[in-house]
Structures are given as structure tokens and as C-alpha cells.
């Protein structure tokens, strides 16, 4: 088992990190998890800011954090391609459900054709008809 470059896509944001890949098993150092995702392993569990998630899986330890165990602890969907050293962590259905229940319109920032960036929140004082379409 050797350490290798690994790409972790966090809700569509690719992050380059390092991991140990052994077949389908991917293990990251706690420091790599903290740097990539902001979650820090503490005695009370995985913590980010004021939020701590209890850890009940011994594959989450100071010696290494198994990626699938991490996804499970955080309640996030994980798509993994260990052979190609890349994985995507999505948003959980529970998070989306809570967000929908709040009726808050999630902010986003996207480019136009010229590459200029626009945020939904730039129009927070107005009515916005958000239209999603595609050329296909």
C-alpha cells in the first residue's frame, strides 16, 4: 500500500489530496481530511467549526480515515473510482430535505458566456424567475 495523489470532488469542487489506495479501499490521513474538507478528528468525533459528528467506526482513527467510513459518518453519498484515484462526495438527501423545508433559495455563483461571474444573491431584493434549460 503506497500513498498516491487522489482527487476528491466535494459537491463538484475537485480537491487534490493524497491517499493510500488498496484495491477498493481508500484511506486518507486525518490531516488530509482536515485540509480537504475541514473535518478534524477529535476525541469527541469528527468536528468542523462548532459541529461534531460522533464516530462509531474504528476505520476512522488517527492512523487513517477510510473514505467510505468518512462518507457514512457524515451521511454523504460517495461515488468512488479507486482504480482511477478519484471519488465524489455529494450532498445528503437529508441536507437537501431540510434546505427545501426552509424555503430558502440556495445561493450559487456561475459564469456567463463572457466568463463574468454572477450570484443569485446579487438579486436578493428582487423577484427572480430562475429558468433551467439546456441545449440538448
Amino acid at each position, binding site marked *: 500500500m503506497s500513498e498516491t495523489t487522489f482527487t476528491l470532488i466535494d459537491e463538484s469542487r475537485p480537491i487534490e489530496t493524497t491517499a493510500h489506495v488498496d484495491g477498493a479501499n481508500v484511506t486518507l490521513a486525518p490531516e488530509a481530511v482536515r485540509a480537504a474538507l475541514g473535518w478534524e478528528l477529535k476525541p469527541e468525533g469528527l468536528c468542523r467549526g462548532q459541529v461534531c459528528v460522533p464516530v462509531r467506526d474504528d476505520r476512522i482513527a488517527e492512523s487513517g480515515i477510510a473514505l467510505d467510513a468518512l462518507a457514512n459518518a457524515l451521511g454523504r*453519498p460517495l*461515488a468512488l473510482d479507486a482504480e482511477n484515484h478519484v*471519488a465524489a462526495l*455529494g450532498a445528503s438527501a437529508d441536507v437537501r430535505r431540510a434546505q427545501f423545508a426552509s*424555503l430558502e*433559495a440556495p445561493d450559487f455563483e456561475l*459564469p456567463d458566456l463572457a466568463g463574468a461571474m454572477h450570484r443569485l444573491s446579487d438579486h436578493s431584493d428582487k423577484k427572480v424567475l430562475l429558468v*433551467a*434549460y*439546456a441545449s440538448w
Partner: protein
Amino acid sequence: MITVAFDQNREDPRPYIEKAKPTHPSLIDTEHRVADLYGIINVSTVVWIDKGKIVRPNAIEYGSDMFTQFHGLESAPHLAAVRAWVNDGTIENADAESIKSRMMAPTADEQLARAEFALAWHLSQAGNAEAAERHYVRAGELSPFDWTIRRGSMPIRGQNPMGPEFFELAQEWDAAGKPGYVSESAKRGL
């Protein structure tokens, strides 16, 4: 108005944007970020937002009747509703509980499908079409009627989004009773 194109590059929607010459922000979402944030599974989908709050949830709506024969939705009721909302603030079924009851929260499988799609798109961009294909297929299996995934991935995978794979998907969807908020929109008269 803000339009968001779920296309994998800026060139595909460019002709439509340049022809329309919009004065509103016309944005391109190559990662389908807005689809994930708003639970969008088809196009064209509209969401009404007022001062940062959703006041009318996801619904399939069209600006013309070009494809009415296919999906059964006419454009006129929605266009009239938009005018009423803009002109005097009228919105049908606008109380919070009604809006919440019409929000279609995603399932765990649908969210995993989005992660599989993100992974596949990353592999496509890296030039690994063979590995990407496995994850596009898996995403489609997990969320079979997410058109942003199944039809949206067709151009990337060398398939014609108006070709045989599209008609196969349309038949599957039709046989399943046209699931998703297309039928919900029609039933509720939204």
C-alpha cells in the same frame, strides 16, 4: 430573470444566448450545481424566488408550445401566472405549507446518482471515457428519470440527445407514467 444552462461547455448554449440577446444574467452550469441545489431533474424547469425565498417550487414550464404534443403542457397558463406575479404579486397556493408540500425532496439514490454523475464528468474531462461510462450508467440506474443526468450525459458520451437513446428513455418514462414534476405540474395546474 436568471437563466442557467446545464451544458458541459460554453459553446453548446452560445448560439441560443447570442440569438436571444438577453438583458438578464444568462449563466452556464457545467457541473449541474444548480440542479443539485434545487433538486432539478429535467428542463426546462422554473423556480420562482422572491427576496431570497422560494415562492413557487420546481415545475416544468415552457416559453412556447413547440413540444406540447410530447409533454402535454401548454405555455400560456404559466406565462399568464408569471405576468400576474410580476405585475401585482399574485401567486396561487402561496402559503408556506402548500409550497413545502409541493417541493419534491430528493431520495438518497438520487443524491448518489448526482455524485456518480460528478465523478463521471470529472473522468470525461480527464479523457477517461471508458471509466466515465461506467459511472454515467450507474448514475442512470440510480435515478432513471433524471433527465439532466441521462439525457444531459448523451452529448458527452457521443450519443445524439435527439437520437435512439433519447427515444428509448422517453418510452421508458412514458411507460412508467411520466414520473417527476412534469406530471405533478400538470395535475396541480401549476
